[in-house]
């Protein structure tokens, strides 16, 4: 490093010495008297006097540049090479896990092992707790799923009754032609009541869904259902057991006979599936609330 400046040796606290009075191991303390007979006088050609040694930053810069190839520089370089080698080896060894264990002492290994066992136990406990929680969650979510499924099923059933969802199934289709305009609202109401009594589950007349609150009115010779005008031919779709529905309409003095008495043409068919797809909007009751 600062080679030319070392000509006059001073009583040097060893390089490893912090300067305080703490002689630590490894510090080569070599108190030397100031030797006027410096080892190599030609090493200091530029600085004539001993007190001209640069200090501080200047010393560092002077030591760094220009590079000088001298014996001491080479020795220091060799030592630093060894240091760098050891540093690199150690850093690599410390960053590799298994070799860190390989270099550990037996008591350290025992401690590490017992630490690991403790940790394993803790993690095992945690795992058990979490598994229990998962089981709970699974059963509860199964229950919730079942409840939701039942709710949806019930909603569909109630929707058919309330007319908010479309329905299809076996049933009959009653077609009433009315060339003379003689069909009145009460006749349609009779037909609906007869069908209901026979077990019809969903009914629509033309494009109007018949539900519990449906009302029939006559207005200027025209039939209105729920306020909507319907005109002939009246097509009544009813879902139910066809073997029950058709005889109910055909009983003597029943719907069909009274309609025919008014010169209306009545045709009853039993299609494979009857589709009741006229819908009513769900109405939220203003006053009545569910008490359950």
């Amino acid at each position: 490093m600062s080679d030319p400046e070392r000509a006059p040796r001073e009583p040097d606290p060893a390089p490893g010495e912090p300067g305080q009075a703490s002689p630590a191991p490894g510090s080569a303390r070599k108190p030397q008297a100031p030797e006027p007979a410096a080892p190599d006088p030609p090493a200091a050609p530029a600085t004539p006097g001993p007190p001209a040694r640069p200090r501080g930053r200047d010393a560092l810069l002077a030591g760094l540049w220009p590079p000088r190839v001298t014996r001491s520089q080479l020795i220091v370089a060799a030592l630093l090479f060894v240091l760098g080698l050891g540093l690199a080896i150690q850093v690599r060894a410390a960053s590799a896990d298994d070799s860190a264990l390989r270099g550990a002492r037996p008591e350290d290994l025992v401690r590490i092992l017992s630490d690991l066992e403790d940790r394993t136990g803790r993690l095992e406990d945690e795992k058990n707790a979490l598994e229990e929680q998962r089981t709970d969650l699974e059963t509860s979510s199964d229950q919730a799923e079942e409840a939701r499924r039942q709710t949806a099923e019930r909603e569909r059933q109630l929707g058919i009754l309330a007319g908010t969802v479309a329905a299809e199934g076996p049933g009959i289709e009653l077609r009433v032609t009315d060339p003379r305009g003689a069909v009145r609202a009460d006749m349609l109401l009779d037909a609906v009541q007869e069908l209901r009594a026979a077990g019809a589950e969903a009914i629509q007349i033309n494009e109007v869904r018949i539900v519990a609150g449906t009302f029939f009115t006559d207005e200027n010779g025209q039939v209105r259902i729920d306020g909507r005008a319907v005109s002939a031919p009246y097509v009544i779709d009813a879902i139910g057991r066809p073997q029950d529905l058709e005889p109910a309409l055909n009983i003597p003095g029943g719907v069909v006979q009274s309609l025919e008495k008014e010169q209306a043409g009545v045709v009853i068919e039993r299609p494979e599936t009857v589709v009741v797809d006229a819908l009513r909007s769900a109405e939220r009751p203003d006053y009545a609330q569910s008490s359950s």
Partner: protein
Amino acid sequence: MIAVLGLVLGVVAGILTRPVVPMGLEPYLPIAVVAALDAVFGGLRAMLDGMFDDKVFVVSFLSNVVVAALIVFLGDKLGVGAQLSTGVVVVLGIRIFSNAASIRRHLFRA
């Protein structure tokens, strides 16, 4: 300059060649490295003080390493190797810190 080159070269060689340290020496390597670092910081500080001497540096470097390794070896034999190597590292760390402090004073005048 040559010395700095030596350090860099050593690190590079250690990374590239991946030498295998003998089993018996492995526990002493970290301590030896820390001791050598202590010597290097001391040397740097001496250089900034203007009293660097290569002979002193060489001797302190080698003796630092040997004494540190010896202490750890002794500790291993006595069954207090872990504690003793911790103690060595603490002492060397303190010395490195105080050396670094005076180096800092030289370089930054603060």
